[in-house]
């Protein structure tokens, strides 16, 4: 049996990896991947807390994760579309070079 705090530690590590990536990498796509990873780490917390809760039949955690996955898919689609649009304009995906508001 795996205790609850192992899942929490694991999700904290995953979150920090995503955070580190999002902070350090310059490529917009990688930043997006980092954000997705943080989101997933949070989802794992929801599931873990649901599983270890006293009243799992309420399905709250599961429901939250289902909605979260749905929204993450939308977020990824819009985010990547934005990245592609930016790339068309600036010919780069490096966030450091995309620094002017005026085209």
């Amino acid at each position, binding site marked *: *049996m795996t205790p609850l705090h*192992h899942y929490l530690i694991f999700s904290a590590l995953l979150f920090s990896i995503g955070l*580190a990536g999002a902070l350090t990498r310059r490529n917009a796509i990688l930043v997006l991947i980092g954000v997705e*990873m943080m989101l997933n780490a949070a989802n794992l917390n929801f*599931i873990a807390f649901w599983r270890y809760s006293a009243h799992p039949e309420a399905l709250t955690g599961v*429901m939250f994760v*289902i*909605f979260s996955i749905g929204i993450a898919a939308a977020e990824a689609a819009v985010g*990547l579309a934005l990245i592609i649009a930016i790339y068309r304009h600036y010919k780069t995906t490096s966030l450091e070079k995309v620094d002017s508001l005026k085209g």
Partner: protein
Amino acid sequence: MNVAFILIAGLTLGSAIAAMSLRNLVHCALCTVITFAGLAAMYLQLNAQFVGFAQILVYVGAVAILILFAVLLTRNSENQPNTLLASPSWIIGILVAISVSGTIIYAVVKSTRLAQTLPPAPEATVQKIGEQLMTNYVLPLEIVALLLTAAMIGAVIIAMRDKNEKEDSGSKMITGNARERVSQPSTIHHPSSSQKTTR
């Protein structure tokens, strides 16, 4: 502590680190896939079957493919110049990440209110989830549906190529060729008494 948990956690964290640190973006994206799949395995371990399958379906089947497409569509971003590990942004980023994870882990380890026992496996059948979605969560469901539609349309509009831009390049390419060969047609005159036949 479970062997399967250690294996999955190790694989997931390892691929997550690889995804965030490899130079080739396609490799990063493929490592992300492993991370997502590992998380799905975690969900399955936690008896959340439906969420696990949804995770694979959405993240592996859709988001990962989207990311790969984005990588290919933004070509010269594929190879990043090697940035030095010692550059200030790296140090700051990693410091922030370590401090965040340290805080959370400290809190988790020190916490006494966390459940220490695993309750019996809950019944999270698809039917129950469906019922919940149609009763308690019907409003969020509608909102998510709306959001997804809006996001889809928005993504299509954002990513659509500028019409003028495309027409310019297209016509340039085509007029560069032998279209002008059609000058005055020389005529061939032959007796052509024609006759119609249905085919």
